[in-house]
C-alpha cells in the first residue's frame, strides 16, 4: 500500500513535471488596479490594467506560418529611391519567409496589379523577379490595393496562419474610397475576419489618419518612415512581429461586479455593455506585453472591506498547440482609512502606464485642436499634460519618476513643435505614429 501510494505520488510528480512546461506555454494574463487599496468612505475612479504577455517561442521552427499580402504603392510619387528601397524591403520579406508561408505581392497606382498571386514561398526567384519589375507611375488607388490584397490573403485564410496585409504608401489615396473613416471601416471588417493590416507611411505625403485608422481597427502595426533607407529596418521589425505570433483571435471579457461602473477604455476599441466590457486583439506576439486600460468607478466602502471588482476571461487560440484556450484572473479592491497603506499598496507600474495613456489621450485632443487651427490651446493642453505627467512622477518617486520625467520632456517638445508651421506634415505624422505606438504597445 505504502509503496503503491509512493508510486502514485511519484507518477503525479512526473506528470506535473511534464505538465508544467505545458502550463507555461499559455499566455500570461494579469489584471491589476492602479490603486488596489482606496480610501474608505468615498467614491473613486481608478485604472484597471489587463495585460497580456505572449509566451516565448522555443525556437524558430515553432513559429506560426504566415499568409501575407504585400501591398506596395507604385504611384508616380514613388519614383526613384523610394521605390528602390520599397523593392529592397519587399525582397527582404521574401528572404525571411519559407515554404510553409504564403505570400502575395500587389502593386497599385491608378490601377491594381497582382504581381504575385497568393502562393507558397517556394520559387523565390520568380517572386523576386516580379518585385524587381515594379515601375512607378500614376495615381494612388490605395483602397483597391488593400481590397485586392485582402482577396489574396483570403485564398489561404486559416486560423493556423498569421493572416496579414502589409501596406506601404507614400501618398494620399486619390482613387476610390479615400477617407480615414472608410478605411477604418474596412480595417474593422478585415480585423473581424482575422486579417490585420500593417500600414507603413513613407515620407511626408500620406494621410496618417487614414493609415492609422486602417491599422488600428484591424489590429495591425503602423509606422512612419521619414527616410526611405529605414524601410528595410521597419520591414525587419514588422516581420519580427509577424513571425513571432503565439496567440490569435483574442477575446477579452471583463465582467465588472455590482456597483463598479466602467467609464472608458483607453487607447483601444472596445465595447461597453452595461457592466460588461469586451474587446478583441487579433494576435499576441511572443514575449510582448499588450494591455487594455479601463477606467472604472468604484463605489464608497468601509475601511478594511474587500470587494470583488472584476472577473477577466481571455479566450484565444494558442498557436503553439492549435487549441482554443481560456485564461482568467480576478481583481479585488480594498478600502482603508490609512493614507500610508493606500500609498504603499499603489501599483506603481499601472499608475505609470495609466499616466502615459492619459497623456496620450490629451495628445490626441491637442492634435485635434491644432487641426482646427487652435494652436495656442493645443500647446497649453500639451503643457498641462506635461505638468500632469511630471506631478505623477513626483508622487510615485523612484525609478518611475525618472521614466515619467523623460516622458514629460517628450510631451514638452511636442508642445513646442505643435505650433510650428515648419515641417508640420512630418511632425504630425510622427506624433500620430507615436500615439499609435502608445495605444497599441507596438514595439517599434
Amino acid at each position, binding site marked *: 500500500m505504502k509503496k503503491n501510494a509512493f508510486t502514485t505520488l511519484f507518477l503525479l510528480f512526473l506528470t506535473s513535471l511534464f505538465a508544467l512546461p505545458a502550463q507555461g506555454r499559455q499566455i500570461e494574463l494579469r489584471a491589476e488596479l492602479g490603486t488596489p487599496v482606496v480610501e474608505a468612505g468615498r467614491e473613486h475612479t481608478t485604472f484597471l490594467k489587463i495585460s497580456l504577455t505572449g509566451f516565448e517561442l522555443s525556437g524558430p521552427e515553432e513559429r506560426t506560418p504566415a499568409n501575407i499580402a504585400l501591398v506596395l504603392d507604385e504611384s508616380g510619387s514613388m519614383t526613384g529611391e523610394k521605390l528602390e528601397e520599397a523593392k529592397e524591403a519587399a525582397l527582404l520579406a521574401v528572404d525571411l519567409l519559407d515554404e510553409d508561408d504564403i505570400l502575395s505581392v500587389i502593386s497599385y497606382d491608378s*490601377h*491594381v*496589379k497582382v504581381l504575385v498571386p497568393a502562393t507558397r514561398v517556394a520559387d523565390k526567384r520568380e517572386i523576386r523577379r516580379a518585385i524587381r519589375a515594379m515601375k512607378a507611375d500614376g495615381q494612388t488607388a490605395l*483602397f483597391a490595393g488593400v481590397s485586392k490584397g485582402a*482577396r489574396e490573403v483570403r485564398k489561404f485564410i486559416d486560423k493556423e496562419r498569421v493572416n496579414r496585409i502589409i501596406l506601404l504608401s507614400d501618398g494620399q489615396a486619390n482613387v476610390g474610397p479615400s477617407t480615414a473613416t472608410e478605411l477604418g*471601416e*474596412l480595417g474593422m*471588417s478585415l480585423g473581424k*475576419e482575422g486579417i490585420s493590416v500593417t500600414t507603413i507611411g513613407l515620407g511626408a505625403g500620406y494621410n496618417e489618419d487614414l493609415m492609422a485608422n486602417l491599422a488600428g481597427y484591424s489590429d495591425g502595426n503602423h509606422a512612419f518612415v521619414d527616410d526611405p533607407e529605414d524601410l528595410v529596418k521597419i520591414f525587419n521589425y514588422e516581420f519580427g512581429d509577424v513571425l513571432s505570433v503565439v496567440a490569435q483571435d483574442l477575446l477579452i471579457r471583463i465582467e465588472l461586479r455590482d456597483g463598479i461602473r466602467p467609464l472608458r477604455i483607453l487607447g483601444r476599441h472596445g465595447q461597453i455593455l452595461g457592466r460588461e466590457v469586451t474587446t478583441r486583439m487579433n494576435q499576441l506576439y511572443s514575449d510582448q506585453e499588450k494591455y487594455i486600460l479601463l477606467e472604472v468607478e468604484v463605489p464608497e466602502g468601509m475601511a478594511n472591506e474587500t470587494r470583488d471588482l472584476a472577473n477577466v476571461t481571455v479566450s484565444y487560440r494558442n498557436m503553439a498547440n492549435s487549441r482554443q484556450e481560456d485564461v482568467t484572473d480576478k481583481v479585488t479592491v480594498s478600502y482603508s482609512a490609512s493614507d500610508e497603506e493606500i500609498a504603499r499598496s499603489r501599483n506603481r507600474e499601472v499608475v505609470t502606464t495609466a499616466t502615459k495613456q492619459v497623456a496620450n489621450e490629451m495628445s490626441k485632443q491637442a492634435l485635434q485642436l491644432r487641426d482646427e487651427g487652435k494652436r495656442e490651446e493645443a500647446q497649453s493642453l500639451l503643457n498641462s499634460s506635461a505638468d500632469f505627467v511630471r506631478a505623477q512622477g513626483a508622487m510615485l518617486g523612484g525609478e518611475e519618476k525618472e521614466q515619467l520625467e523623460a516622458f514629460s520632456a517628450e510631451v514638452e517638445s511636442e508642445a513646442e513643435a505643435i505650433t510650428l508651421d515648419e515641417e508640420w506634415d512630418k511632425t504630425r505624422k510622427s506624433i500620430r505614429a507615436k500615439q499609435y505606438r502608445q495605444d497599441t504597445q507596438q514595439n517599434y
Partner: protein
Amino acid sequence: MKKRHANLLLLVAMVVLPLALLGWQAYRLLTSDSEIQQARYDQLVEARLQQVDQTIQDYLSSLADDWRQRLPTWPLDARGLQTRLADEIRVRQLFLLGPDNRRLFPRDPLSSDEQDFVERLEAIWRDPSLLQARRTESEAGISAAPSPSLSSVFRKSARESDGMQSAAGWYMWHWGAGTRLLFWWRSPAGETIGLALEPARLKSDLIGLLPEDETADFSIRLRDAAGQEIYQWGSYVPEPGETYHHYPLSYPLSSWTLEYAGSQPTAAAAGFGLLLLLGTLAVVLVGLALYLYREQTRELREATRKVEFVSQVSHELKTPLTNIRMYAEMLEEQLGDDPGQRNYLGIIISESQRLGRLIGNVLNFSRMPPLHIREVDIDALVRQTLDHFLPGFRTRGLEVRADLQAGATLETDADMLEQILNNLLSNVEKYAADGGAVDVATRVADGQLVISVRDHGAGIPAAEQKKIFDAFYRIGNSLTEGVSGTGIGLTIARQQAQRLGGDLRVSDASPGACFTLRLPVIRGEMP
C-alpha cells in the same frame, strides 16, 4: 501650246476621276461598315458590362443565400445578437423586429451609433412593410426593363414569400450622399432581422471580385451612388473629351453606375486598309499619268528637234540653191536660141524656184520671220505670182482664169502674201490639175481684201476641211497618192494669214475647192 494644256487637263482628269469615284465608294462602304461595327461594339460593351453586373449580382445572392441559411439558427436575444454582430464581418449594424413589428434590437439605451442607425431607418419602424414594398418595386422594375441579372436575387425571395411566412430580400436606402444596403429576413414566427452592410466592406469585396485586367483595350469604372469612383480596370486611356458609356447596376445597387470607354479597333483597321488601298491607287495613277505626260512631252521635244534639224538643213540648202538659180538665170541671158537648151534651163530654173519655195515653207514653219510691212499693189503681186506658175500649169494642162478686181494697194508683207498664194497655187498644181482650170479672183468687199483661189478638182470632203490646216496632216485617199508633200503648206498659209491680221478658209465649190484669203484693208493688229 493649247493642245499641251488640254493634254495635261486630260491626264489630271484621268487621275482625279477614278480616285474621286473610288473615294466616294470607300466612304459609303466605310459608313455602312462603321454602322455595323458600332452595333457590334455596342453589343460587346453591353455584354461586358452585363457580365460585371452579373458578377455583382451573384455576389449579393451568395451573401443572401448564406444569411438565409444561418439566420434561422441565430439566438434572438439582445446578448446573442450583440455577439453575432461582433462576429459578422460584413455587417455594421442590425435590427430585430418582433412579430408585432416592435423594435426589439437595438434596445434602449442606444449608443450614439445605434441612435444614428435607428433615426435613419425611421421609415421602417413606422411601416415595416416598406421592406417588402421595395422588393415588389424592384420586381416591377424587372418586368419593365428585362435584365436577367436583376431577378436572380429576388426570384428566390419572391418564391419563398408566396404563401410562406418567411421571406427575405434586399433593401436600399440613402444615407447622406451614399446608399446603404440592408438584408432582411423574416422568420416563420414573424420576427424580422435586418442586417445593414458595412459599406466599405461591400466596396472592398466588389473590388476583390472585379478583374484587374491590365492589357484590355477598354477601361471600366465603377461609381457609387455619390458618384465616387470605387474601382477601375483596363488600360485604355480615353481621348480628351471622349465620353464614357454609362450603365446602371441592377437592384439593389441601382444607383451605382458602370462607365465604359474603349477603342473600336476593327472599324479603325478597316478604314485604315481602305485608305491604304486608295492611297496606293492614287500613287499608281499619278505615276502612270506622269509617265504618259513625260512620254508625250518627249515626243514633242523630239518632233521639235527634228523640225529644227530640218530647218537647219533647209537653211544650209538655201545658199547653194540661190547660187544655182542665179547662175541659171545668168546663163539664160547669155544662152543662144537653141530651144532644147532653153527648155532644159527653164526646167532648172522652175525646179530651183519650187525648191526655194519648199525651203521657204520649212523655214517659215519652224521660225517666224519678222514682218516687212510696205505698200503692195495686190493685183500686180497676184499676177506676178501667177506668172511664176504659168509654165508648170501649162505643162499640166491647167488654164488660169484671173479676175483681178481689187485695184488697191495694201500695207502688208508682200513676201508673206506671196508665200500664201504660192502654197495655194502649188496645191492646185499638185492635187487639182485634172480640174483643167483654176479661178483666181481678187476684190475688196466690206473693208476686206478677198483673194480666192478655186480649182475644179476632186474637192475636199467636209470632214477633212478642218483638219487640212493641221500640221503634218494629209488627206489619206487617192487624191494624195503618189504626190509628195510635207503636210505643212496649208498650216503655214493659215498661220501667215493670221499674222497679217486676216484669215484663210476653205469652202466647197463642187467641183473643186475654193480657198479664200481675207485681209483687212486697214491692216489689223497682229496676233
